[in-house]
């Protein structure tokens, strides 16, 4: 067993300004060592510690999909020292990565099922991974209907705009992008995610829902899903807590007797109902 605290070096290929407010950037990293690439086996929903050398590391959900070989993507909001350093890292520089960490969305269990992906704001990174994974020609046949409901405060804050546009054109995915407030550039839906979920009304039959977003969105979306007949065992969520080690040792991210980093970050609503609300 290797030392799980050691980062592997990756090259920053692209440092892309993702949102209009310039607070979120998407980093595309390439593996420098071939064996690191071979060892980095992950599934949508997992995260990694990203390390700005000399500044520190922070955990981020992996936004790329394992079906995109050779690279990893992370979308990072600028909130502190490490994220600011990452935002300022020039293309071509070396960045450290530790992972993949945590559990994933239950991609095996989801086979043969329909999936409703509901996301809000910044919390769309591992959802992008999931959608990209399912839409891959090698995987698409394994999954049923794919419905995506994704909202942001305004159109400038939506992540992955080009991909959203491409998904809207496809017939094998129902893509509903919505904004809280429309503007002259926005031709799509206007309304909050819970309302859009109600309007879209995906059938709960043989269907799972993955919900990621700000607490207020989740609070009002869960009753809609319940009304549509989704049982808590088929509502999947991902938690965030402050983390350091990412491997269940440093002790800070626990919710009850579970570590978000190791036992999560993905939990079903049924599981969350048995855990204290310390997240």
């Amino acid at each position, binding site marked *: *067993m290797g*030392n*799980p*605290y*050691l*980062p592997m*070096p990756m090259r920053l290929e692209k440092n892309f300004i993702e949102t209009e407010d310039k607070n979120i950037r998407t980093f595309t990293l390439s593996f*420098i060592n071939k064996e690191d690439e071979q060892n980095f086996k992950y599934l949508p929903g997992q995260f990694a510690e990203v390390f700005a*050398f*000399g*500044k*520190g*590391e*922070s955990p981020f959900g992996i936004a790329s999909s394992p079906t995109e070989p050779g690279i990893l993507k992370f979308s990072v*909001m600028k*909130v*502190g020292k490490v*994220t600011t350093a990452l935002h300022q890292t020039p293309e071509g520089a*070396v960045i*450290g990565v530790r992972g993949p960490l945590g559990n994933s969305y239950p991609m095996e269990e989801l086979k043969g099922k329909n999936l409703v992906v509901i996301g809000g704001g910044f919390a769309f990174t591992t959802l992008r991974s999931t959608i990209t994974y399912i839409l891959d020609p090698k995987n698409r046949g394994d999954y049923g209907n794919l419905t995506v409901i994704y909202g942001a405060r305004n159109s400038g804050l939506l992540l992955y705009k080009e991909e959203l546009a491409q998904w809207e054109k496809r017939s094998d995915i129902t893509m509903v992008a919505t904004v809280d407030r429309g503007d002259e550039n926005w031709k799509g839906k206007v309304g909050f995610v819970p309302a859009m979920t109600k309007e879209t009304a995906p059938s709960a039959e043989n269907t799972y829902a993955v919900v990621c977003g700000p607490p207020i969105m989740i609070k009002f979306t869960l009753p809609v899903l319940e009304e549509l007949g989704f049982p808590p065992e088929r509502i999947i969520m991902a938690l*965030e*807590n*402050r983390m*350091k*080690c990412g*491997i*269940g*040792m*440093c*002790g*800070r*991210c*626990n*919710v*009850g*007797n579970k570590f978000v980093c*190791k036992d999560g970050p993905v939990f079903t609503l049924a599981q969350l109902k048995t855990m*204290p609300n*310390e*997240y």
Partner: protein
Amino acid sequence: MLISKNDLPVLLDRILGEYEVYAPVKEHGKVEFKKISSGTQVCLQYSNSQKPPKGILFPQSEKMFCYETVQDGVRVDEICDCSKKVIWGIRPCDAKSFTILDDAFKNEQYRDPYYYKRRENTVIVGFGCNRPGATCFCTSVNSGPFDTAGSDVFLTELEDKYYVEGITEKGKEFIARYQLPDGSPDTSRIKESAVVASKVNLDGLKEKLDVNFYDEIWDSLWEKCIGCAACTYLCPTCHCFDIVEEAEGGKGCRVRNWDACMFPLFTLHGSGHNPRPSGKERVRQRIMHKFKYFQDKFQQTACVGCGRCIKNCPVNLDIRILLDAIQQRESGEGC
């Protein structure tokens, strides 16, 4: 086997030829575990050390690796403390704490290489307590003044000598090398007279904690706490840590430092949200972790009853009283 008290310094000097030896040393009126350079430095007339010896295997601050960004990448130098160590004369509560740290530093996927490297290279020589202290409550947490759990070798103090027992294979091999005189004296009288007066009733506590997370009792239990974290720093089983950079430019070291659930920054999110915003949640976390979460996972309580948190709390918050208060509350009350 036996070793006379007069011969102990000579034995320790022989051990020092092969191992780093950590033993209780009296300085400025306090006993601490220190790396010794001579057997005469050791002071075995003590109740327990001010700080737990956990820092020998899990240092308060330790470099994990150093790095330097270079022309076409980065150079990472892993740091390994591979020295062979002996911890001599540690009390049964502290020896037992290593069995708890063993659980904390591994899980089904990962093993902490820094802790385990030291653990594997260390011989732990436990030392029975003939006169337990006033704040000791080891017998309440499945231990006792002559518990050998966690010890490779165990010493029992007799009038003018120590009875030396090999407990584990590692311990037996270790003492065999020093060819001590044989002997197995009757220690029953000593063991009987070592009374741990202080008791906490833990029967049914776990079952109460299973259901009382939202109980009103937590609203008042923590009120005295000033959040100094002396309890966690001095706890032999507390093992939470922070990871920080000590670096300039692209060159520096990754360092880990003890951290504590009693601090608000421990859980503060980047967004400003804090899942444990006040002392209430933090004191609850400390009790829950030791007496419920750890038991859920490893079927043992993460408290060894050493009493350091009681002795050193600046506001006299006594974990025995906290646990009694929880025990006395009817379960479900105020939920």
